[in-house]
């Protein structure tokens, strides 16, 4: 892990305040694995103060490119997405522990995303497809049709995706975890990977436990340093320990986490 000045190759707007930023950073592109994240500096002022945390959405090792998905929710993300092509973002990475990609590899794989949690799971999807996995089932939950439309831009062509929306405008009407539970018996996966809002991951963890399926989640705790120095992003595990999401995670086995 190191600090880099990464040049912006291109920024795409997907709608609904969702952006994809392509950065040139051959070191991170070479080292990073799905589930890892970067800490992005916001401008040169002290306000906003802290770096912003983003899971990697993908890398292109040959071209030395790194992709991030950014949901503009405040001044920090607004400033980051406003940086022009050719200029640089100061980023630290790759950080944290990624997904274990070698769980029950002979069986189907299920990925469950809620909103912006889609980013690390699509990086994982790409990685699994590259290593020859063909039985991938992707569950994508978002609030509305327009949110789905913006996330649609992020998906590769060959992927079976089940959708749910809060208002029923796209796919299943209701929670993505409920749709997942309906489909699990027919898919019979060897592993479930999930990333999204806390309550969604908690629901997925409960379902995985009920069906006896291994499940990994990428937690989205608020972080300050991202380096393990501040203990700000602590997560309680079932064995009682408080661990740092940034260095001990952000990916954990769902059964380890005290939900």
């Amino acid at each position, binding site marked *: 892990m190191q600090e880099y000045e990464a040049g912006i190759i291109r920024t795409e707007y997907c709608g609904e305040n969702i952006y994809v930023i392509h950065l040139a950073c051959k070191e991170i592109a070479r080292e990073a694995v799905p589930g890892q994240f970067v800490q992005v500096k916001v401008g040169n002022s002290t306000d906003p103060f802290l770096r912003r945390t983003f899971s990697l959405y993908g890398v292109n090792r040959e071209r030395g490119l790194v992709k991030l998905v950014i949901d503009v929710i405040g001044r920090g993300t607004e400033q980051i997405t406003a940086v022009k092509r050719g200029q640089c973002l100061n980023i630290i990475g790759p950080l944290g522990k990624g997904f274990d990609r070698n769980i029950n590899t002979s069986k189907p794989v299920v990925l469950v995303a809620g909103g912006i949690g889609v980013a690390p799971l699509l990086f994982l999807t790409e990685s699994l497809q590259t290593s020859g996995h063909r039985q991938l089932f992707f569950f994508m939950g978002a609030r509305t049709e327009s949110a789905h439309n913006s996330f649609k831009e992020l998906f590769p062509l060959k992927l079976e995706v089940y959708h749910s929306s809060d208002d029923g405008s796209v796919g299943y009407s209701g929670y993505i975890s409920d749709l997942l539970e309906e489909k699990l018996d027919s898919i019979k996966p060897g592993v479930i990977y999930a990333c999204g809002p806390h309550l969604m991951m908690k629901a997925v963890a409960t379902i995985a436990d009920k069906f006896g399926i291994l499940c990994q989640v990428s937690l989205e705790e608020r972080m300050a*340093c991202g380096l393990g120095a501040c203990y700000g992003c602590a997560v309680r595990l079932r064995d009682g320990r408080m661990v740092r999401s940034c260095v001990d995670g952000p990916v954990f086995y769902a059964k380890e986490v005290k939900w």
Partner: protein
Amino acid sequence: MTKASMTQTLFGIEFKNPVIAASGTFGFGEEYRDFYDVSLLGGFVTKAVTPEPREGNPAPRIIETPSGMLNAIGLQNPGLKAFVNQILPRIANFDTNIIVNVAGSTADDYVAVCMELNGHDPVKALEINISCPNVKEGGIAFGNKPESVSFLIKKVREATTKPIIVKLSPNVTDIVSLATVAEDCGADAVSLINTITGMVINVEARKPMLANITGGLSGPAVRPVAVRMVYQVAKAVSIPIIGIGGIVSACDALEFLIAGASLVQTGCGMFVDPKLPLTVIGGIDAYMVRHHLGHVTEIIGSIGVTEA
């Protein structure tokens, strides 16, 4: 960088430069090693060590604020035994001053940590944390009254022959009187300031943003408060002062030195800029060249003030 011009010997310890990494922002000295060699620092202060392991406060523990952040970590640490047996052997060889931040719930807790660490040569000094605002017992409970500061520091003084640095809280009416008490009770130095108690509310949920309800404010937002306190304490005590509070540049560090601090600590600024201590060291050196100063001590307390 001209090495000799930065070196100072304070309370029996040689500091190769005046920049130290602050407790709670630097782990146990291992987290930044990918970025630079820790031996380039004047020293670092470990996370607080308590006699028994502490799990700290529930999450969320941090929230960003204008030019700063609130934290309520709650002194999470693996305890004295794990520090001595597992961590200290790993960091003992670092060619820089290891200062251990000492905390506890009772005076006996502080004494126990100080006595044990007295026998460990790699530990060069102890920073006595009487200013943590985020724990129910100990911390600030010892640091907000002259009697309790006196009670604790006298006990700690008897428990160790290592230099003791008393870390003072800004959440008091008169920090100068507390610094004076610490000096009178045998403190070798004072470090200030710890964080300022603050609170942020989630308006939509009508709930505090931190699980602990309140937290400690740090970052550039607190710097003028810290500089003012260093300036006032410097006029009242003759022991060295370590200035802490919102340093994110060499210029910020120089404010503390000019106000009267002999050393400075960088804290949460390192979360944003891991190499900040090196930038500060380089910037102080450049300042000295620009102002034709032969030694860093020529900056310390050099403020020109015409009192009204």
